[in-house]
């Protein structure tokens, strides 16, 4: 498992199976697992600490292992190119998948996937960076500027059948400076489907701000939950004290 910063620095921080177990113990609302590896699909980097786990040396083995004990919704993303890639993951235990670059390259994949598995299983992940011309969608691990405006692509993805939009601010990733509330609000207002915001959470008040100031249906975070002690249970307790729509 890795932490990241602006999608550039990737530091290995441990065994993903152990982290998933902790998330399940914390009874998190949903778990999103993103495979950001590159190169040969079945070979993981030798620095990963989970190669010692039996059955975890390949992605599907890993999914099977966590799916058996995962009593909360699981979304899987990364390296999904075709409808068959989605089928394999759902069969193995994912409740939803998130597709990103493949949807940008071939937008009809969204509709095909939604037809086959139902919109509720298809999340379109959108990574974006702020530039001179506004918030621009980036493909391929946040590397390639597609020239598309984030609101326009989000609308199209929803029209084509995405059941949710997972919106990720690359510039904010790992910075702990708070969510990009303005862009999140614009995207949430533009689409009829739920939007989950990600990128920049550094303090539990950032979650509250996102709910109070945007139409986001959910907030997602990675780094904060891996580095700050007991961050998830504390964040939940804090939010429950401020709102009545939190589990």
């Amino acid at each position, binding site marked *: 498992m890795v932490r990241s910063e602006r999608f550039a620095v990737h530091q290995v921080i441990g065994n993903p199976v152990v982290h998933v177990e902790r998330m399940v113990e914390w009874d998190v609302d949903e778990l999103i697992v993103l495979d950001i590896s590159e190169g040969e699909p079945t070979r993981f980097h030798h620095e990963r600490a989970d190669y010692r786990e039996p059955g975890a040396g390949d992605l599907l083995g890993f999914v099977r292992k966590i*799916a058996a004990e995962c009593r*909360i*919704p699981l979304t899987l993303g990364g390296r999904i190119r075709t409808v068959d890639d989605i089928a394999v993951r759902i069969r193995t*235990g994912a409740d939803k998948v998130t597709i990103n670059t493949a949807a940008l390259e071939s937008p009809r994949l969204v509709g095909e996937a939604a037809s086959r598995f139902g*919109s509720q*299983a298809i999340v379109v992940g959108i990574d974006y960076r702020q530039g001179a011309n506004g918030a621009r969608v980036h493909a391929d691990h946040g590397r390639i500027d597609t020239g598309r405006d984030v609101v326009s692509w989000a609308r199209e993805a929803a029209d084509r059948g995405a059941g949710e939009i997972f919106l990720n601010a690359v510039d904010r990733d790992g910075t702990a400076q708070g969510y990009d509330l303005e862009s999140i609000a614009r995207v949430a207002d533009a689409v*009829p489907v*739920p939007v989950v915001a990600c990128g920049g959470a550094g303090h539990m008040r950032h979650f509250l701000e996102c709910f109070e100031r945007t139409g986001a*249906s959910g907030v997602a975070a990675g780094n904060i939950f891996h580095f700050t002690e007991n961050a998830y249970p504390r964040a939940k307790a804090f939010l429950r004290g401020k709102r009545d729509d939190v589990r």
Partner: protein
Amino acid sequence: MATRVAVIEYGVGNVGSVVNACARIGADVAIARDGDELRAQAPEAIILPGVGAFGAALELIRSRGFEAAVGEQVHDAGVPFLGICVGMQALADSCEEFGEHHGLGWIPGTVCRLVPPGSPVRLPHVGWNTVDASADDPVLGGLAGAHFYFVHSYAMRCDQQYVVGTTEYGGTFPSAVRIGHAWGIQFHAEKSSLAGERLLGQFLAFADACSSGG
């Protein structure tokens, strides 16, 4: 003696989650891929899961011979039944989506969109929500106020007499229904953490009592 549960596999969604959840709570769980397999298994309880569209689900249920087999087991042999999500919706007469789709018709009612197109309320209804559940229902009892995981855009509309749980989203809708020893739940108990496991456990305990009580 572990309760023998048959989980119906008809090509819609992922039965793995339901199978895993049943296994976690100690059931003896098997997958039935068609009506004959279900008959051969002669289970003590039947679960019909499912996600996605009503029409596609009913077509697959029928093409695999489940309508008759499940009907025999539940109505003739008295086997307790639990329908989840589309598995609950299938119990209705029809669905308003894409014209006439005939359901199993166990509960008089229709499946409709939760809110009309253009509503400010977002669809699908996805995430955790609470169920206002009947305190004395064998499956839903003790779970009022607990959070369960929903992911759907349609819901059953039926007479109050069949409703054992309601939920608020764009209005009040039935999130749990019952007719005799057949239940339908709109939410995914298999993905609803401990509350879900408790519900499944209560369903299996009911089934257990049925088969040992004779």
